[in-house]
């Protein structure tokens, strides 16, 4: 059993959605004891699932300053009271970015994005031209430095041709640059303090990893029931597959159950007009 504790149903789940498949797969990518800087939304869901299943000692850090937090329900915002109430300690936001992220204490930066391109560059800034945008997105937030100061980066994003583009309109957060070489060209001192970048992209269809030479994202594992054609159609560039892509293991019944309980708990919690005051 993956979490080592007795009594859990570790058999394969009978039914699960593509999103559940993505979340469970993402959670499995976090090994126990990892220090993970967590983005809100899908990454937060996956990271907490990992903590509640196979990786109880995963250290979750949110950019609001909450260190080693263990929320019982998923936060709606990056700074929900739940994160502070269940944290080992809460530091100022400057300290969080300076001492903990830039200081090199983060193993995995776990990010979502609006757009991702062939070289794993992330865009959360805008669609169109910067001065006259078609769609203005929220912006970088913590991502630009999470992407470079973490030892490695996992990206979670639903697969669609709108999101997986040949080249992002705007590089908010560095993957491997427009030519795939940006991390190779850094000043040696900068390189010493810069992580490996996106090593894993988890979608609802597959897993992608950067090619070791070119850093182009290639499909390394295909989720159950998904065809190559689906992936090709949902990717805005001529996507490549490794020679023998793996078949992503299905989620266990236990994982799906824990995830659904977490989401149900969360929904009940956030539905209340007035939650209880944080202590």
């Amino acid at each position, binding site marked *: 059993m993956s979490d080592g504790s007795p009594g859990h149903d570790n058999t394969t789940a009978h039914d699960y959605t593509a999103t559940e498949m993505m979340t469970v797969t993402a959670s499995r990518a976090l090994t126990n004891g990892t220090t993970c800087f967590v983005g*809100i*939304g899908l990454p937060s869901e996956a990271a907490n699932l990992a903590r509640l299943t196979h990786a109880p000692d995963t250290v979750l850090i949110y*950019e*609001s*300053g909450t260190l080693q937090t263990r929320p019982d329900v998923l*936060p*709606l*915002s*990056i*700074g*929900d*009271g739940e*994160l*502070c109430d269940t944290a080992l300690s*809460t*530091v*100022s*936001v*400057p300290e*969080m*970015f*300076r001492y903990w992220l*830039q200081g090199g204490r983060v193993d995995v930066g776990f990010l979502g994005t609006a757009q991702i391109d062939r070289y794993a*560059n992330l865009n959360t*800034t805008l669609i169109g031209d*910067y001065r006259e*945008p078609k*769609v*203005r*997105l*929220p*912006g*970088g*937030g*913590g991502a*630009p*430095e999470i992407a*470079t*100061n973490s030892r490695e980066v996992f990206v979670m994003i639903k697969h669609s041709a709108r999101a997986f583009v040949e080249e992002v309109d*705007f*590089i*908010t*957060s*560095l993957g491997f*640059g427009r030519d795939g070489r*940006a*991390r190779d060209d*850094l*000043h040696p*001192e*900068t390189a010493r*303090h*810069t992580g490996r970048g996106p090593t894993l992209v988890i979608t609802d269809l597959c897993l992608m990893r950067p090619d070791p030479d070119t850093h182009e994202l290639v499909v390394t594992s295909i989720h159950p029931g998904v065809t190559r054609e689906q992936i090709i159609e949902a990717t805005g560039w001529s996507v490549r597959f490794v020679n023998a892509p793996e078949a992503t293991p299905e989620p266990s019944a236990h994982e799906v159950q824990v995830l659904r309980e977490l989401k149900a708990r969360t929904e009940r919690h*956030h*539905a209340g*007009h*007035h*939650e209880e*005051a*944080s202590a």
Partner: protein
Amino acid sequence: MAEFLSLHEAIARHVHDGDIVALEGFTHLIPFAAGHEIIRQKRQNLTLIRMTPDLLYDQMIGMGCASKLIFSWGGNPGVGSLHRLRDAVEKHYPAKLEILEHSHAAMACAWEAGAAGLPLAVLRGYLGSDLPRVNQDIRHIDCPFTGERLAAIPANRPDVTVVHAQKADRAGNVLIEGIIGVQKEAVLAARRSVVTVEEVVDSLEATPNACVLPAWAISAIAVAPGGAAPSYTHGYYARRNDVYKQWDAIARDRDTFRQWMEDNVMTVEEGVSA
């Protein structure tokens, strides 16, 4: 030295047309009551600074208070876009809004540098990002020891910072607890500061290393119970996530927004708006 003033008086005295203004709060302790008072007093042409402009800045921008926004993440947390901000950026409604955009790491450092009286903040940031191409305030220095090129941005030095906090003692010292964000830095970086508090108490009962702002680092304190709602105050009340979710529909339409502001902010007395 902190003066206890009514919220109306604190805003009237310390927030002026054309000011560089920061209403900070990292999800927690967002000074909604004070922001609404600024809207009611019809301030114009403000440069708004904040790491995470959310509903409050959406409202201030939508009501035409701002001509410029300096920020690092402008969304409705966990919900989606800020439609009034988007309308201003995409369609220049109600007016053109100049934006100056950073990352959180840089903005956090800019607050720290402002508090520290330095002209610039230095960080290992923006590597490979396009942000330096669109923001002339992102420059670089060379480390005289290692030769490494590091990002540099100007310190944040607003004319006035407005924050919300848990409590003040009768001498005007303020305790901030929980997700403290950049509250202390934003106050210390500003020329003037207004702090709204849930209550005034005889003693802060703070532990030795708690986040405390001395009275002599604050310009004015206004008592505003519930002044952070629909965001929250640790130890007092929780975040109204339902209000954040409902905001999406309200702000999507210009008229719906205007009417909502009329009903919920403009005609409401100081301190009781939500």
